[in-house]
């Protein structure tokens, strides 16, 4: 096609048309910059949103079924408060599921019913029916479901903050805040991903806390939760001599009194000459030799201390099924300063240097773990509390009011922080503890009227890995509930409808929209560069346009030539921008660390965004770029193209 032929000839920059080439380059640069910005920004927003939704749907499930007020007013729910069988207490959904009778009221035993419950038929077990529906549909949609409970209480935590200036001392503070309590769920498939993995230090803290708080040591439970890889011997802790080989030499200090060695301190990593001497054991001789080669014989009972921390590799843990940690032995195999240390040492009072929890470890759900702290309720704290100095192993209590016989009475539940979890970016997330069902049942049982911030206190969560199915599942369940006549008792909501998520969800949408608008405006500005470039080109090529017309080129052809020019400029810009964006997104952490080093602090709050800025390539943005940029460039090209096509050839060709 002759239009493309000419258009491509015009695209190649010429020395004669330097200014035009510069403007072309500038417009390509600006367009690619905008394309890059749009793609990177939207991909990061997309990533944050996905990340956020993922956290939201892991913790709170993408679908939630909660009882309506109709349910709470129904005789089915109310009857429990009047039945001795139910201890005159309302029942949660789980308790209803486990209840043996739909109607626990017994005419002969129980007090008379209030008139609004009199003669009411309670034939249908609402919760059981709902459970059956959920169970049936589960086969088809492959989801997991479980009931949840939410509650609230005043949390008081005693926080140890080690004070570095005073060796060994630490001051204690009480952290006190109103807290939501959510139940952890066994059926939640991805819950593990939210829990911060316990560090070796955390496990060490939990071990020592267990020794502190529990009257009965429970090595069996401890070792079924944690694997120990390395332990640390501290200075002033007697070195277990059974680890030492038959003959060895260690650089050492000796405290000598009346030519008698009282104790030996070994310095495995010190250079021989800087030491006072060395500890030598040969086949039948055991002595300390100072730098002047004076030898001091030692007895087998001379205590040896490490002068610094000794890290020992644990090969195997022996006999864990014993009542006390002092009977647990670690099989050690470590080489220090050329001496191979081998043997068994007792686990008692040792510091754990490297350890990890067993796969799938969830302290709230693990009964074995709970047995380590029998007097405590194990809770997971939101990770933001780490900023307030809360550590794994910290203890405190939850305080709530219970209705006593005469007046409200304060009750306490002792808690122990076993780990931290990531609540995502929910506004209430930072104030939510994850607790076992006992806690919520106890608190809700004590004061059943509590409903925090419109969040349902009881309901079912439904987890599915494919979020696209969520609206479909909702529709199907709604239809089933309708069929069973349960729709007025239960409300089904998707994650987009959650009261605490709605605002943020809209915020994300409007942020994106706003940015898109800004991007379009900047793109228009960038594309207007194309206009000036093309106007220059048209002026430059006036005579050639007239010649083409004299050869019979139509107005359309002329317009197409300049349109193609504009479009290709836009296209080159977008391609460069897209490539740059892909490279940037793949190396985002470098960019962030660079920005952070420029700013002198973390450029993006890791609490909010996670360690690396999440990103997920935004195909919507790519589509937007692929459509918008050439379109805008064509529009930008049209104005000069029309100008070009309207040039009268006669006037140009006559001027010589």
């Amino acid at each position, binding site marked *: 096609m*002759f239009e493309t032929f000419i258009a491509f000839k015009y695209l190649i920059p010429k020395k004669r048309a330097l200014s035009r080439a510069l403007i072309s380059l500038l417009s390509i640069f600006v367009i690619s910059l905008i394309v890059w910005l749009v793609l990177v920004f939207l991909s990061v927003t997309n990533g944050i949103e996905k990340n956020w939704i993922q956290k939201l749907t892991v913790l709170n499930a993408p679908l939630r079924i909660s009882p309506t007020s109709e349910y709470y007013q129904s005789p089915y729910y109310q009857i429990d408060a009047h039945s001795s069988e139910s201890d005159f207490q309302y029942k949660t959904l789980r308790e209803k599921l486990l209840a043996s009778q739909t109607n626990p009221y017994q005419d002969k035993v129980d007090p008379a019913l209030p008139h609004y419950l009199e003669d009411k038929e309670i034939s249908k077990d609402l919760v059981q029916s709902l459970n059956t529906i959920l169970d049936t549909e589960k086969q088809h949609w492959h989801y997991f479901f479980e009931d949840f409970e939410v509650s609230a209480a005043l949390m008081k935590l005693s926080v140890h903050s080690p004070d570095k200036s005073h060796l060994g001392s630490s001051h204690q503070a009480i952290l006190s805040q109103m807290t939501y309590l959510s139940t952890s769920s066994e059926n939640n498939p991805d819950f593990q991903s939210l829990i911060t993995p316990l560090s070796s230090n955390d496990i060490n803290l939990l071990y020592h806390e267990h020794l502190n708080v529990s009257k009965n040591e429970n090595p069996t439970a401890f070792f079924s939760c944690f694997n120990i890889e390395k332990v640390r011997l501290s200075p002033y802790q007697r070195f277990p001599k059974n680890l030492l080989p038959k003959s060895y030499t260690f650089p050492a200090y000796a405290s000598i009194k009346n030519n008698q060695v009282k104790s030996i301190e070994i310095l495995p990593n010190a250079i021989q000459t800087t030491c006072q001497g060395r500890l030598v054991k040969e086949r039948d001789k055991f002595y300390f030799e100072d730098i002047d080669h004076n030898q001091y014989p030692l007895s087998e009972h001379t205590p040896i201390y490490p002068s610094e921390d000794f890290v020992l590799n644990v090969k195997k843990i022996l006999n864990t099924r014993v009542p006390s940690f002092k009977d647990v032995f670690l099989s050690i195999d470590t080489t220090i300063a050329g001496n191979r240390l081998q043997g068994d040492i007792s686990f008692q009072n040792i510091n754990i240097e490297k350890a990890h929890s067993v796969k799938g470890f969830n302290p709230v759900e693990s009964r074995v773990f709970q047995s380590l702290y029998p007097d405590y309720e194990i809770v997971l704290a939101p990770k933001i509390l780490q900023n307030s100095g809360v550590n794994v192993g910290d203890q405190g209590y939850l305080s709530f009011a219970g209705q006593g016989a005469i007046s409200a009475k304060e009750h306490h539940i002792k808690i122990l922080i076993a780990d931290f979890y990531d609540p995502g970016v929910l506004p209430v997330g930072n104030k939510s503890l994850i607790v076992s069902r006992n806690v919520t049942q106890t608190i809700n049982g004590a004061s059943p009227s509590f409903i925090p911030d419109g969040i349902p206190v009881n309901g079912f969560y439904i987890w599915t890995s494919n979020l696209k199915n969520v609206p479909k599942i909702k529709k199907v369940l709604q239809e089933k509930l309708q069929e069973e006549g349960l729709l007025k008792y239960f409300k089904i909501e998707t994650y987009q409808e959650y009261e605490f998520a709605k605002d943020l969800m809209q915020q994300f949408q409007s942020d994106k929209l706003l940015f898109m608008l800004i991007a379009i405006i900047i793109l228009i500005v960038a594309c207007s560069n194309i206009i000036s470039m093309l106007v220059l080109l048209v002026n430059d090529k006036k005579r050639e346009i007239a010649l083409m017309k004299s050869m019979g080129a139509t107005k359309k052809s002329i317009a197409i030539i300049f349109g193609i020019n504009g479009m290709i400029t836009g296209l080159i810009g977008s391609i460069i921008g897209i490539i740059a964006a892909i490279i940037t997104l793949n190396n985002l952490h470098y960019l962030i660390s660079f920005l952070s080093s420029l700013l002198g602090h973390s450029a993006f709050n890791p609490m909010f965004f996670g360690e690396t800025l999440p990103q997920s390539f935004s195909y919507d943005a790519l589509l937007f770029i692929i459509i918008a940029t050439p379109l805008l460039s064509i529009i930008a090209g049209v104005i000069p193209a029309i100008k070009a096509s309207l040039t009268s050839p*006669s006037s140009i060709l006559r001027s010589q």
Partner: protein
Amino acid sequence: MPFLQAENLSKIYYKPTKQTLLNQINLTVHRNESIAIMGASGEGKTTLLHILGGLEKPTDGQVIFKDHHFDANHPQPAFFLNQSIGFVFQSSNLFEDLTVIENILLPAKIARRKTHKKSESYKQALQLLSLIGLQDKIEAPAKILSGGEKQRVAIARAFCNDPQIILADEPSGNLDFENSLLIHSLLIDCVKKFNKSLIVVTHDIELAKLCNKIYTLKSGHLTIKTS
């Protein structure tokens, strides 16, 4: 039989003041006939040529070309310019960034004819190139050619789509004497060889003499000089 006919052609400019450039001009060109239009500068020779070739609209009157009537409201369509008319202008006729052969083949490209090396148009272009004696500069960019060579390429291009009439506007206006002679003979030879009609606007009496008829345009009136 008249091939191209101008009937009562008028061109009146209203800006800056009313000026009648062409006044009721009648002209008939027969097939294979070559005519020269002479006249002083500013008498409207080029305007007349452009109106005849459809590059400009007349104020009044009509052009009848191959039994088609064109006037101010019905201008010649683009394909007419492409297929039936070959223009040669005074200077800057060529696309500087294209090669000689690309320049010659441009009308064929505009006509959407095939222009690859085995195509008819290409063979024809080679023939034209040998006619103008530039076979050795076939792939040379137009910008390195001399003025005379450029005009020769322009003439070759005018013949590319095998038009019926060649309209030439001072084809040797910017050239030295020798080159002018070369261009004159080339133009006339080609017209005769390919059996084309020719209208040439010129100051050059030598070129005019080579034509069948010479017209003089003065004060908007066209008069025949000799036959």
